[in-house]
């Protein structure tokens, strides 16, 4: 493959994997420049197993040469319609078009490709496969699914090619969407009774399924349950640092479990953990609000939206907004405006900055709008205020 084509293919792979291409037509032109017949529709993530050992005490030069070798091998094995790019030192995203595959997961070329690549490189890989997205602009989603699946495969073990579809939909669905949502909401609402009821229901639902599942399938079920608990806990104010010991304990137990019966105990303890997590510390919310206030104070000059602020707290805008109002009696935007006005007043008193500059410093690109808000707050225009004080 000539270097121009190689660069085009790599650029396309990056753009699609990280969702950088927005125009349908431009995307098609990139596809053609990369020498493809049609755009990819599915992302797979290939992670080298045991990379920690492999990379230990290696020089940067060795790593560069190793990556070159990896790339060369993938180039030689993949067919002309598949493209790839590195997503980290030790993992690649490989993008395919599923039209090139037959129907069903069994017909994918992945097992054979994996076998050949592993033989050539004398390495083992875990592979996560995202869902098919006919609109290639959405392949960023497929990438996230593939990465999540690869991680799950790495933790849970068993098979070494995991399909997101198989892990989240259909008969093999680890947890039903409705129950997941119910559990998440119960945790977020801090409703102990409801949380206990949902957990009990999930335990009953899973009991038969676990008994009938193989070890790998059962581990996936538990992994899914723990993921829901973890995400809900994060969204309701706990920090990663606080949750980390629990994650570690769960993952270790999952790895060590040798029989399905070992996992029954984990469901029960996960239920208890949920309740403990929520009952643990009401001041978590207060801490989260404090963090949010600090963030607003430090960034009041920026063009902030509620979504931006909520994202910093790992919360949905809606939940964050409700929580903020409950805790402070003000909406986030009222609080931010009050902060900006106080800062604006201070700058008017202590500096000679023109009003337009003060407005900009406190996050208002339109000085007239700043003046109107200022007048509403303090009963006089900024210039009057400065003259008076």
């Amino acid at each position, binding site marked *: 493959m000539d270097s121009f084509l190689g660069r085009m293919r790599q650029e396309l792979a990056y753009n699609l994997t990280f969702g950088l291409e*927005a*125009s*349908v*037509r*431009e995307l*098609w032109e990139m596809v*053609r420049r990369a020498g493809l017949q049609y755009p990819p529709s599915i992302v797979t993530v290939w992670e080298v197993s045991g990379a920690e050992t492999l990379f230990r005490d290696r020089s940067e030069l060795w790593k560069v040469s190793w990556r070159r070798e990896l790339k060369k091998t993938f180039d030689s094995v993949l067919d002309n319609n598949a493209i790839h790019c590195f997503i980290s030192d030790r993992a690649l995203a490989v993008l395919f078009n599923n039209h090139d595959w037959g129907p069903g997961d069994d017909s994918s070329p992945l097992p054979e490709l994996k076998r050949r690549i592993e033989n050539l490189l004398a390495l083992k890989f875990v592979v996560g496969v995202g869902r098919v*997205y*006919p*609109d290639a*602009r*959405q392949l960023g*989603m497929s990438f996230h699914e593939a990465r999540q699946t690869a991680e799950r495969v790495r933790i849970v073990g068993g098979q070494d090619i995991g399909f997101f579809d198989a892990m989240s939909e259909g008969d093999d669905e680890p947890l039903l969407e409705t129950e997941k*949502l119910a559990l998440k909401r119960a945790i977020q609402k801090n409703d102990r009774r409801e949380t206990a009821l949902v957990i009990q229901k999930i335990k009953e639902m899973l009991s038969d399924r676990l008994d009938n599942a193989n070890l790998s399938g059962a581990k996936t079920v538990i992994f899914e349950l723990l993921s829901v608990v973890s995400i809900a806990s994060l969204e309701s104010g706990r920090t990663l640092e606080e949750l980390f010991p629990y994650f570690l304990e769960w993952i270790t137990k999952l790895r060590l479990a040798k029989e399905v019966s070992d996992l029954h105990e984990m469901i029960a303890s996960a239920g208890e953990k949920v309740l403990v997590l929520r009952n643990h510390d009401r001041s978590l919310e207060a801490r989260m609000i404090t963090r949010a206030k600090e963030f607003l104070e430090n960034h009041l000059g920026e063009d902030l*939206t*509620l*979504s931006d602020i909520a994202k910093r707290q790992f919360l*949905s*805008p*809606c939940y964050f*907004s*409700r929580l903020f109002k409950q805790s402070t009696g003000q909406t986030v935007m009222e609080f931010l405006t009050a902060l900006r006005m106080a800062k604006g007043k201070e700058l008017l008193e202590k500096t000679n900055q023109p009003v337009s500059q003060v407005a900009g410093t406190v996050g208002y690109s339109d000085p007239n709008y700043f003046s109107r808000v200022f007048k509403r707050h303090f009963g006089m225009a900024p210039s009057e205020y400065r003259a008076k004080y």
Partner: protein
Amino acid sequence: MRLLLNSLDPEVAECPEELIVYGGTGKAARDRESAEGIRKELTQLKDDETLLIQSGKPVAVFPSHPFAPRVIMAGSLLVPSYSDYDTFSRLERRGLTAFGQTTASCWAYIGSQGVMEGTANTYGEVARRHFGGTLRGRWVLTAGLGGMGSAQPLGVEYNDGVVLAVEVDESKVDRRVRNSLCQMKAADLDEALFLVREAVGRKEARSVALVGNAAQVFRDLLKRGVTPDVVTDQTAAHDLLNGYVPAGISLPEAVKLRADAPEKYLDLSRRGIVEHVKAMMEFMHRGAVVFDYGNNIRHQAVAAGLPEAFEIPGFVSAYLRDYFCVGRGPFRWIALSGQPEDIYALDEFILAEFKDDEEITHWIHFAQERIPFQGLPARTCWLNLDQRLRLVQVITDLLRQGKLAAPLALTRDHMGSVASPWRETEKMPDGSDSIADWPVLGGLLNAISGASLVSIQQGGGVGVGYSLHTGMTVIVDASEISAKKAQQVTVSDVGLGIIRHADAGYTSAQRMSRQYGFHVD
């Protein structure tokens, strides 16, 4: 045959395994056996033969001549006195007929893009007439993200507005988001309203989908005192049994009840639709712009005991009629090569040739950027007769120069060749709303003018008994006869729409009719 297969492509069809293309139960063929029969006959069909299809089933091949259509169809038709939903359903269950919706049975469906520009134009007219020409800072509440309804999010975004689309089937919501037809899915009504208000406040275009029952969500919004700027609905209200889901029951419960107790289900649907339309009317009384978006919801409500439902205007008479009077309507071309380059080459021509027409250039740029192809690459664009003729000429020239990879299919929605008193022909000035001669004349005229496929159907959009309409497709290749057919059928197809409106008394249509020499002294 490529068009038949395209309409059943999983990227295009709502439920290809049941041959359902879109619009509730709109099918491409009556059953598997018929589909296979059609495929087989089309493979063998000669240039001087015509295949007859009766409600999705191939029934005969007759000797004809090269200028005759290769396929003629009649679909879902019943004798007028028997033309009602119950009779149709009974016959459909016996395998004697099939519902072809509008562009499903005549294989002209191309996915959401097909109605996208029409939707964008509808919202554009709403903006022009009520909001100073833009929906910036305004929000639209609607429902239904099926084949037709899924054009709404982009249609509103095209006009810089914000839309909240309620859909009862979560899998449809997910599909629209995955296909970039809608920006985001809200977890619940609170989050949906937050996302809507944020975008309205920032005057940004945004589309939000919410999984829920439309009637229920509409009522919840009324209780909260929330009034959108615009309210409409594109749920499958035309089909109270297999399409509409009444409030109070979930989708799985609906599926079960439809099979177990259809009469009970219909009763629930009728009562549900009354409440649904009452909510829409309440929004109207509170100041929202409310209109019926062609799913016959008003008529269903009237039939269920809410006569005042007709206070809500229909979208064609309120917003689109002026386009049809001057022969401008939804025209589409499909690249049988499967190569997007063919469509882009024609886009380039249109952008250069019609550069002064801002509606056209804005649309083409928007489509190129935002609308992915589903199945065979295709483009839809509202063009008038002169523009269509020019495009036909260019397609022929480019084919002859080898600049297009393969022939193209020219087709259109049925909006110009239709009798539909609750939609396209509502409120005609001479009262001819329910006169159904026009689409039949249109079908006959297209057949003698060189169309490759002609279909005469009923029930599209508004349900059985409420419309009669004609489909037309002409294949353009590099040959002389093909060019002649395409030119002639384009004139006859657009011309019929113009004279129908001229005959009803529209002066703009009368002017066009005189200009093209269609009128009879």
